[in-house]
């Protein structure tokens, strides 16, 4: 680090960045004339600037533009902001939520003597949206499927699409209660790339190898992107719980890495 006065350093950087005024430039010139160490600092910074300016831009991949266009949903979603009925402290302390869920689960477990979840009907065990069908406007690029969830306490939809080498899940859920969503997958093949929740982001997202879980409440859109570097077949086990009770279970999947059903 240089021992130059902060104001001098700031001026030198501003000059290199083209952010100095005429008056500041004049003051800097005057200062440099009598301070060789400042002159040296300026020369070194100018050299760094010159070296960096000669770095060439990277060409974008040829298929990037068409890939993005193909992956865009056919229509833009319309999101409505709804007031959340949870208190702020509950949102900020996820353990409290889990505490409620755990207590409810224990009570239920005790009552049912080992039967933690109610039996699922064959319909509930079926795929969330069945076998993936290629989206018509995505041709060979991606596959997109959707299912609607229609339960007394849980409504909305789930989508799975392929995005480059990644798999993207979009959960559009609405419920007056806290919905716990759990997704299981082959952790040796897939990894979590990003998580996003709108509106707002509650600190309920957890990821372990092969499992992710999050909470949704009110009307929220949650987007989870899984990295699929090994281009493995997609097979995701998705479960929805309310107050510790399994409400819906299904699998999202594609038989090949491109998301196409064979």
């Amino acid at each position, binding site marked *: *680090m*240089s021992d130059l006065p902060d104001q001098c*350093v*700031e001026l030198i*950087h501003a000059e290199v*960045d083209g*952010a100095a005024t005429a008056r500041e430039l004049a003051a800097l010139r005057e200062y440099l004339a009598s301070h060789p160490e400042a002159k040296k600092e300026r020369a*070194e*910074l100018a*050299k*760094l*600037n010159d*070296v*960096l*300016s*000669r*770095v*060439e*831009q*990277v060409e*974008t*991949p040829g298929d*990037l*533009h068409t*890939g*993005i*266009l193909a*992956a*865009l*949903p056919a*229509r*833009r*979603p*319309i*999101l409505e902001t709804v007031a959340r009925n949870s208190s702020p402290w509950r949102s900020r302390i996820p353990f409290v939520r889990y505490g409620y869920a755990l207590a409810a689960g224990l009570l239920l477990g005790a009552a049912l003597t080992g039967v933690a979840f109610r039996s699922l009907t064959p319909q509930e065990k079926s795929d969330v949206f069945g076998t993936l069908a290629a989206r018509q406007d995505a041709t060979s690029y991606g596959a997109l499927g959707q299912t609607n969830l229609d339960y007394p306490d849980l409504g909305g939809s789930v989508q799975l699409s392929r*995005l*480059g*080498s*990644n798999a*993207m899940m979009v959960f559009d859920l609405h419920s007056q209660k806290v919905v716990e969503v759990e997704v299981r997958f082959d952790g040796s093949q897939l*990894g*979590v*790339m*990003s*998580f*996003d929740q*709108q509106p707002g982001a509650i600190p309920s997202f957890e*990821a372990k190898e092969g499992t992710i879980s999050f909470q949704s409440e009110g009307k929220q*859109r949650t*987007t989870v*992107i899984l*990295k699929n570097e090994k281009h493995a077949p997609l097979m995701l086990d998705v479960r929805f719980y309310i107050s510790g009770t399994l409400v819906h279970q299904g699998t999202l999947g594609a038989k090949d890495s491109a998301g196409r059903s064979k």
Partner: protein
Amino acid sequence: MDDNEDLKLVQESRQGSRESFERLLVRYEKAIFNAAYRVLHDFEDAKDVTQNVFLKAFENLDHFNGKHRFFSWIYRIALNESINLCKSRRRFDTAEDHRIEVRNTPERLLSRKETDGVIQGALMCLEFDYRVVIVLRHFNDCSYQEMGEILEISEKTVKSRLFTARTLLREILSGKGIL
């Protein structure tokens, strides 16, 4: 870039014009890809981040506040995506990961490509926050004000971070014989 034109394209995209969104894509895809590449130093990761950025932008256009610049908004998404990618892989890179052997003697001048590689390696030796300001200023030609908008920090913090980043980068590049 023309901010008014961006706003017009955003408005048209909100009303369902895919053509307008494609024009936004044309305007910014190269800059976003390059920024992501410089920050992540991985071609495929930069590609994935760029795809995610535009998909998220498309889905969240209604959340875009017209009081801000579109390019600031989309750069912010790109940096957040890059940070998420780094975190999810637990690979905030260290100097050791990007050590590049350089034998730069008077008899052997580095080629343009080699020099770019050394500079990229030096960038990856910087902490993420420092790397980002160098990328935004020197590769994306952002002003202090624009960097502040993108990073949601004050101009004063931008300057402080940039000055430190440059000092660190100079030290590394001097050691590599580039400066």
